[in-house]
């Protein structure tokens, strides 16, 4: 059967907009790649973040899966083009970064915001908590050390993710537990809620109170699968939103055509 390149691309785009399932974790190949070029953004807070290895973790996991990722300063994030914004190991979140996060959420992006405050001193932690509460309506509690003698005797305090798929990921010694708030708790460790996801603006905010980046950096396969599942979901969500927007535009044009 002959098929032109243009027609093939048309089918492929159609499949994307229809929300056909993606196979995100296939060794040697990633279907994340074609959709992603400028839209997957890793927000590097540099001196404001406290774990360079977390940034490296996300970067290495995504680039090894063939994803074209843009590592950017907050000033260079373009919310209208951003499908997924990842903010690794945030501690101090400066105003430009807050603006980028909020704008991306309003524009329909998924934002993974990872707290790096587990090891923060009192003053840094308080500032972190205030910014999260006032700017992003995320409420967190004081860091909890997981490896006390008592807990240690009970085994490894894995972080148990329940969404978008069950996953067990190595802890990072200290977590920032969540307070009571709107949204779905998506991970627990030792009975503490440590991650949530909720709709925010037209987008989705995923807050991680236990850093995932270091586990990615150390090559934790389960952490990678979890991340790719989240990103796949974000991609499908965005495709579905785009499809609805296009359908609405088409309907508008049709109405104009019939009335005009």
């Amino acid at each position, binding site marked *: 059967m002959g098929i032109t390149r243009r027609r093939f691309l048309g089918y492929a785009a159609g499949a994307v907009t229809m929300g056909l399932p993606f196979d995100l974790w296939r060794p040697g190949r990633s279907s994340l790649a074609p959709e992603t070029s400028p839209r997957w953004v890793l927000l590097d807070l540099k001196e404001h973040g406290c774990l360079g290895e977390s940034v490296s973790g996300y970067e290495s996991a995504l680039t090894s899966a063939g994803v074209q990722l843009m590592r950017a300063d907050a000033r260079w994030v373009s919310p209208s083009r951003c499908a997924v914004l990842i903010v690794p190991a945030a501690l101090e979140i400066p105003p430009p970064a807050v603006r980028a996060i909020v704008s991306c959420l309003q524009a329909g992006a998924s934002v993974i915001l990872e707290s790096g405050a587990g090891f923060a001193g009192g003053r840094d932690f308080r500032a972190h908590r205030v910014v999260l509460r006032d700017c992003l309506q995320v409420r967190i509690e004081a860091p909890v050390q997981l490896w006390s003698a008592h807990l*240690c005797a009970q085994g490894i305090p894995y972080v148990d993710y329940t969404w978008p798929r069950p996953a067990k990921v190595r802890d990072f010694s200290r977590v920032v537990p969540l307070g009571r708030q709107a949204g779905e708790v998506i991970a627990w460790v030792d009975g503490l809620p440590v991650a949530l996801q909720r709709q925010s603006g037209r987008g989705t905010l995923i807050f991680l109170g236990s850093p995932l980046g270091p586990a990615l950096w150390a090559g934790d396969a389960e952490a990678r699968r979890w991340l790719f599942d989240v990103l796949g979901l974000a991609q499908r969500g965005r495709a579905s939103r785009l499809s609805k927007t296009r359908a609405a535009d088409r309907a508008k044009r049709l109405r104009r055509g019939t009335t005009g």
Partner: protein
Amino acid sequence: MKKAIGDNMIAKEWGFDKGLSLVKQAGFDGIELWLGDVPWFQLSTADSEVRELRRRVADAGLVVSNVSTGLHWASPLSSRDPKVRALAVRIVEREIETAVLLGTDAILLVAGLVTAEVPYNEVYQRCLEALRPLGEKAARAGVRIGCENCNAEHRFLISPREFWQFLNDVNSPAVGIHLDVGNIHDTGFAEQWIEIHGPRITRIHVKDVMKRRGRCGDQSVYTNLFLGDNNWPAIRGAMTKVGYDGWLVAEMEARYRYAPDQQFYDTAQAMDRLIAGRL
């Protein structure tokens, strides 16, 4: 080959100068200075005081073989806490600075610490991340970093090939191995470590080990030269094979219940026999 002994073997009540004269009298050529483990050489010791230490070592007729530290057991480069890591890096930097001030070209560090809490893969990555820039710093200072094989103690880089791969990954000529022939226990053979690492060996720590004793409470597996299970003729042969002609540094536990100074004499004589190959 020259022989040295650590200043952490000097009893605190003797003091540095008395310790130096004992080291000299026992027949050693040099002394290994342990940053943070002895009162006279701390992180807070100023440059001028470090120069003064060098003068005192020279006055005793000795030289500094290398700078070592045990501070990384409490503050490892592999810590998850960024503040602890920063301190660990600072310790290495201070070792490099003081090595230059003391006129030596080698430092020792314990590269990482695998624990139940901080798993191997993280430790590996974090140590690479720390050692690459430190290697550049050391190279600029004309100093080599020797990562000590602490095998069972740090539960990291336990086999010689694993260690070899790690050094390949660090990929810096200024980062090698400070080989301790007593630390291998029954996980391998010191002579094979020497053969595999050859030119990457910065210094060699010597002590003997009782491979079949195992540990029980505070009971140690370490002992003086020739009293344990190391194959010393094989170790000496491997040194010859790879052309190792550098420092041998005694790192013993102070085990003598009486006449503790005798351990210095016995160790120096045993090292002479080892160097001469009269085994």
